[in-house]
């Protein structure tokens, strides 16, 4: 909780969020919101303005944001909606709500330097195309130093935990609209 407030403040976001007059331009153009009515950026900002941060962090649907930045471009109050959701995701991650894929990828990046490694077949294809070997990446030592400096192990622990409470499904309109 503290971290979310802090990180929002660090990036100067709560003050901007207060300017929101709930016009709905963000939700109106959201490519995710079209298919998932329980993903409503306007409502997320409303929750921030009303101080309902705890509830917002626990909403699993915030992870559906594709960060296409349409809302950010459309907002007449220049509120960086997508940015704010990114920070909410950070706080949500610390409660263990992050999708497994994200956590696994982060693990790969911090332990091996890359989000994925080329498989043998791909290396062969690279060779066939006459491409040079991929340049050597960050060394193991430096990765360790980085992880240690960022206190990464502790962070990973928080990402992997799951809260004991039952995760609430967001209520408003369940599921997808009729096609």
């Amino acid at each position, binding site marked *: 909780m503290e971290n979310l407030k802090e990180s929002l403040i660090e990036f100067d976001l709560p003050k901007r969020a207060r300017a929101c007059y709930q016009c709905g331009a963000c939700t109106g153009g959201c490519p995710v919101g079209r298919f998932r009515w329980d993903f409503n950026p306007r409502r997320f900002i409303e929750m921030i303005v009303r101080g309902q941060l705890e509830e917002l962090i626990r909403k699993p649907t915030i992870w559906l944001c594709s960060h296409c930045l349409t809302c*950010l471009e459309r907002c007449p109050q220049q509120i960086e909606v997508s940015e704010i959701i990114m920070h909410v995701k950070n706080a949500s991650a610390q409660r263990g709500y992050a999708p497994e894929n994200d956590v696994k990828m982060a693990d790969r990046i911090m332990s091996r330097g890359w989000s994925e490694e080329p498989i043998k077949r791909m290396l062969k294809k690279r060779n066939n195309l006459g491409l040079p070997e991929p340049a050597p990446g960050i060394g193991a030592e430096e990765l360790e130093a980085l992880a240690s400096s960022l206190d990464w192990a502790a962070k990973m622990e928080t990402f992997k935990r799951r809260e004991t409470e039952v995760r609430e499904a967001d209520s408003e309109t369940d599921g997808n609209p009729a096609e």
Partner: protein
Amino acid sequence: MTENYEYCFFPGCLIRARLPHIEKSARLVLERLGVELSELEGASCCPNPIYFRDLDHEAWLTLAARNLSLAEKPIMTLCSGCYSTFRDAEHALEKSAKLRHKIGEHLDRLGRKIPSGSRVEHFARFLFEKVGPAMLAEQVLRPLKGLKVVFHPGCHLVRPSRIHEFDDPDNPTKLEELVWALGAEVLEYPRKMLCCGFTVMGADRDLSLRMGFEKLEIMKDSGAQAVVLVCPSCMVQLDRNQRLIEQEFDTELSLPVFYLTELIGLALGESPDDLGLGLHLVNVRPLVEELLGAEEGRDSDVPRVRS
């Protein structure tokens, strides 16, 4: 080309691991246009502007700053995601002394310094701003006459417009001029900036495919023969996942997807095999053969000039 450009090459994780043909076409085209690409050693994932950034801002910014600090020359990236990470990181560090200090402490422990200024270039922007459609047209040996395509700009090259300040964030047309310069025709289609949905895959596979389907459907309805794009994530979603989408929604799309550098490569006379076009999941062979004539479409000899 009279100018000589020097960049540190940063293909990004996805291209490096899964899309060697894109790296190939990019290297070929950039080098043909006078760009000297040096290898960037010791780099890591940019890191991923969605899947990593959404877990921890501090770690994301630190890794990004570290990558930027490695580059002795400006970085040329092939991926809109990497471009987004680097530009957002530069912007955040520029705006906040507090962040500079905090991230600086991490970099200190690695014996590195906080980078300053803007040192990143997206290959497509480079092609438009530094090479330009006119110069590109002069280099074309094999105009792609008769090819009708649609351009998918992707979300992170033009947005956020306040940071990138490149083209209209709702209807960008600059990069399309590069495709016109190759002799092809770029078709209009509605909702050009609609997100392909790749980034949602981690959270909801069905939703992601649904978004990809909508995008592909709209593009197909425009009458285009192919899609052109500039981001490997979009490439994976629209090319690699196209069959999945076809299956999921019981439809036939068969819409070839090209990276901008691949089309340029073809127009500059490179052979489809040299460009690695066989590595596309959606078969581009029929279209390429139609474009270049059956013989040329198949072999990798020295390209011939087409009138």
